[in-house]
């Protein structure tokens, strides 16, 4: 029977084309009209360590988060089978290479020792030997899984017999086997695959043809399984859909928002954003310039932020993108921007810290770093985005806020959003507005820091007949160093009272959004990429009779305490649960500090893997039905 949703794991060694498999499948599914979300999990490694793609495909809507168990595990190697033994559901399908059947856990060098012993212990508990074949037999016997064994080498030999492919490039076609097997199970149309392959291998027609040929071979061997995991007819009616990562969504938002200078120092998971911007640094569409964006790879993050500030002084909308370690290096520059009221945007993708921590895994544990890093007091704005769509609009809004209030803006995201790929409706760019705030042409006697208003009219360096000064020292209205106590009082206050202005001028829906039941029994509070899993969990619980609401906090600083307080006091305090990818569930402390609300219930996850809908639903259920105060999640390989 066709399904409404299908979960898939694609697993294999890093560098083996697993990302290509994901892209080809996702675009083919999007071509059909299905909604897709795909989380990408990988090590800090170029080649060889286990990476996997965790997808959820839906015929009814665009999925918001991934969940377990999945319906298909498609493996390129033995490690995938050992690693994901628990992830496949009853009646699931296992795609594997028959040549790995005799592989033993002990023989796989790329599995870390701690993981290996944990898996060995689990297998011992299940009474299963540490070979692939015994795992497969177990899954078949105990979980009713269907085994889809393919002889990868034979398939590739067949391809080699027909096409002139350099033998050393042959392994690249393994990703095509995975695509073909999953596409066959899902009963995807050959033309949709062809369309997707053409996008993937743009212009290299021989690769499209070879992969289609491979699809034929795989289909031949899977006749009886065609459509075994078919989806219902898609119920969405988008004519066009974006298939993009969070990094891409932000890059597009920045360009639409008028970005003209982007600096970066290579760091995961931020660098892809700058790559995307660089690809689109300049276009001329019917004689109209889109750009130019100067994209600078700098010598370090200090130079990244300082040069972005410099470009902002010259009037360009400018930004930099980084993650925790890079942001730490930017902090002195951030304070300078605060002191000089510079509209600069820092896109901050959190990953697992402290230090290098888990450089390719996700986290929300840098909340306080974004909010409070810097010496001295000054106004800043920190916003977060709950999904790809919000990330696009927020990337535009970050510039508007920066220029309206003349403050540095931190757009706080995380690796989960940055790297996950999602089908997203095309943004309504015609509804977007560019707001540049108080801009002046300057003129003789211009005072950059005119005290007659909280936000002084801003002229750009280079304005005709205009001279201005900037300094990190306390300064007078012209920007010259002044240590006079009365000037200090006035100028220091001017910069800080912007916080009140920001809170009163930003509309409520930009501060937070509330989803779910209008008369909730319990309320979940979170920010950023928690949103998808939270909405799924609340919906699932409402089907079980629990009325819940989710508060998606979008403006993190200045914190919208009044609005948060107003919502959270609608339910008893033991019915408010904060959720975050961190140990401390830091949003609770923030609410206590800035809204005077104590949130005593929390769901934390700090393994670096995303909170899934399934485990969040269980955790919330436990908290609202028992006295449990804190649940720590840990599911996911």
């Amino acid at each position, binding site marked *: 029977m066709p399904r409404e949703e299908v979960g898939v794991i694609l697993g294999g060694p890093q560098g083996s084309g697993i990302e290509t498999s994901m892209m080809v499948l996702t675009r083919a599914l999007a071509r059909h009209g299905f909604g897709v979300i795909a989380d990408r999990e990988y090590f800090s490694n170029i080649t060889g360590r286990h990476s996997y793609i965790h997808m959820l495909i839906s015929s009814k809507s665009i999925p918001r988060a991934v969940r377990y168990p999945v319906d298909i595990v498609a493996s390129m190697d033995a490690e995938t089978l050992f690693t994901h033994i628990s992830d496949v559901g009853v009646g699931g399908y296992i795609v594997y290479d028959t040549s790995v059947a005799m592989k033993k856990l002990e023989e796989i060098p790329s599995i870390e020792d701690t993981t290996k012993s944990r898996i060995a212990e689990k297998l011992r508990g299940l009474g299963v030997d540490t070979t692939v074949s015994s795992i497969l037999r177990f899954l078949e016997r105990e979980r009713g899984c269907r085994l889809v064994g393919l002889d990868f080498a034979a398939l590739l030999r067949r391809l080699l017999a027909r096409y002139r492919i350099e033998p050393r490039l042959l392994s690249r076609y393994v990703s095509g086997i995975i695509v073909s097997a999953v596409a066959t199970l899902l009963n995807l149309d050959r*033309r949709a695959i062809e369309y997707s392959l053409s996008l993937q291998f743009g212009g290299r027609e021989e690769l499209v043809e070879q992969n289609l040929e491979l699809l034929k071979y795989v289909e031949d061997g899977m006749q009886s399984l065609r459509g075994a995991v078919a989806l219902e007819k898609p119920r969405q009616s988008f004519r066009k859909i974006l298939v993009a990562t969070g990094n891409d969504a932000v890059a597009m938002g920045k360009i*639409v928002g*008028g970005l003209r200078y982007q600096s970066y120092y290579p760091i995961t998971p931020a660098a892809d954003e700058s790559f995307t911007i660089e*690809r689109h640094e300049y276009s001329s569409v019917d004689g109209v310039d889109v750009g130019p964006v100067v994209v600078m790879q*700098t010598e370090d993050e200090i130079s990244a932020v300082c040069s972005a500030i*410099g470009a902002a002084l010259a009037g360009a909308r400018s930004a930099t993108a980084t993650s925790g370690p890079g942001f730490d290096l930017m902090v002195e520059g951030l304070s300078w921007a605060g002191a000089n009221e510079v509209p600069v945007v820092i896109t901050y993708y959190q990953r697992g810290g402290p230090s290098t921590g888990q450089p390719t895994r996700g986290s929300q544990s840098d909340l306080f770093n974004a909010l409070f890093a810097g010496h001295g007091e000054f106004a800043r704005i920190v916003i977060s985005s709950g999904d790809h769509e919000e990330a696009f609009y927020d990337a535009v809004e970050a510039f508007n806020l920066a220029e309206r209030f003349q403050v540095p803006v931190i757009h706080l995201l995380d690796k989960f959003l940055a790297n996950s790929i999602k089908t997203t409706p*095309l943004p309504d760019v015609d509804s977007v*507005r560019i707001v540049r705030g108080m801009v002046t042409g300057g003129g003789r006697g211009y005072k950059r820091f005119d005290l007659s208003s909280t936000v002084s009219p801003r002229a*750009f360096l280079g*304005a005709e007949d205009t001279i201005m000064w900037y300094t990190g020292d306390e300064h007078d209205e012209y920007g010259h160093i002044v240590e006079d106590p009365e000037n200090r009082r006035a100028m220091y206050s001017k910069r800080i009272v912007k916080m009140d202005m920001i809170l009163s001028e930003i509309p409520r829906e930009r501060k937070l959004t509330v989803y779910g039941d209008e008369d909730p029994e319990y309320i979940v509070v979170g920010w950023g990429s928690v949103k998808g899993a939270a909405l799924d969990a609340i919906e699932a619980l409402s089907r079980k009779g629990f009325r819940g609401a989710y508060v998606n906090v979008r403006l993190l600083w200045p914190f919208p305490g009044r609005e948060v307080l107003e919502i959270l006091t609608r339910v008893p305090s033991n019915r408010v649960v904060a959720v975050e990818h961190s140990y401390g569930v830091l949003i609770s402390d923030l609410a206590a500090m800035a809204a005077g609300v104590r949130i005593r219930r929390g769901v934390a996850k700090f393994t670096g893997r995303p909170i899934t809908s399934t485990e969040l639903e269980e955790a919330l259920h436990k908290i609202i039905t028992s006295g449990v105060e804190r649940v720590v999640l840990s599911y996911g390989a």
Partner: protein
Amino acid sequence: MEHRSYKTDLWVDWCPGCGNFGILTAVIRAFEELSLDPSKTVIVSGIGCSGKTPHFVNVNGVHTLHGRAIPFAMGIKLANPQLTVVVHGGDGDLLGIGAGHFVALGRRNIDVTVIFHNNGVYGLTKGQASPTLPLNTKTKALAKPNIQQAVNPVALALSAGYTFVARGYAFDGEHLKNLIKRAILHKGAAFIDVLQPCITFNDVYTAEYYRKRVYKLEDEGSWNPVVERPGDRSSKLLKAIERSFEWGDRIPIGVFYEDAHTTTLEERFSQRLKVYPAVAPSNSRIAESDGRPVVDRRRFEEVFREFIVDVEGV
């Protein structure tokens, strides 16, 4: 133009007799003689005594962070390539905390001028040894002789890729002014190492010390630092580097190296960005008059077509 117009009326709070006065005067005279438009000129400085320079000159001034003047200058110049950008920094500033940026500017050959206030000490923090103070030198504020070696700023600039490299002396105003003019007119990253006596903390490298030793490279008839053809680069560079190590009884000032054949970063960007630098980040249109972005729906679909899937519902 009247002499006073490039000078602000702020009290200059350097120590009386400081080499910085000579540098300031030379800068102002160079700006005057070049008739630079003050609104199209930007002085960018770091932290320390030299960091205050922009406040004393009546052109745009950006007094930044310790060591970071070059990155700020890079952002300003790339965003608005029409501006004349002059960086002022000390030896601790540009070659201590900011050395990475100093090298990076050479690699990029951005059209900015760096004026290096070289006094061998950290003045504002009371005389600690800087990266240009030689090993075993004991200036008066040091408890013990300097335990670190000096870096050679001219040799470093040459090897980093600066395309105009010179040395001046703070109290030879006319010579320094001419070097500054030539550096500003040079298309590419220009560096002037200015020997600057610190009257308060450096009692070794004093005005008296330099007065006896400096000589002008151009007084040697055979000295020609100009790269006439791209093929001459390495031989000219080697000669310049060799000469940069002359120090002691005779200290050369003047132009060590000048190469107008290496492309600037701005020119490299113009290869990619087509309309740059005429259309630049600072003057390109981002919105229509009603605030709608230049990237409307149709342009969005055109520019970002790599992300768009046409749904067929097959």
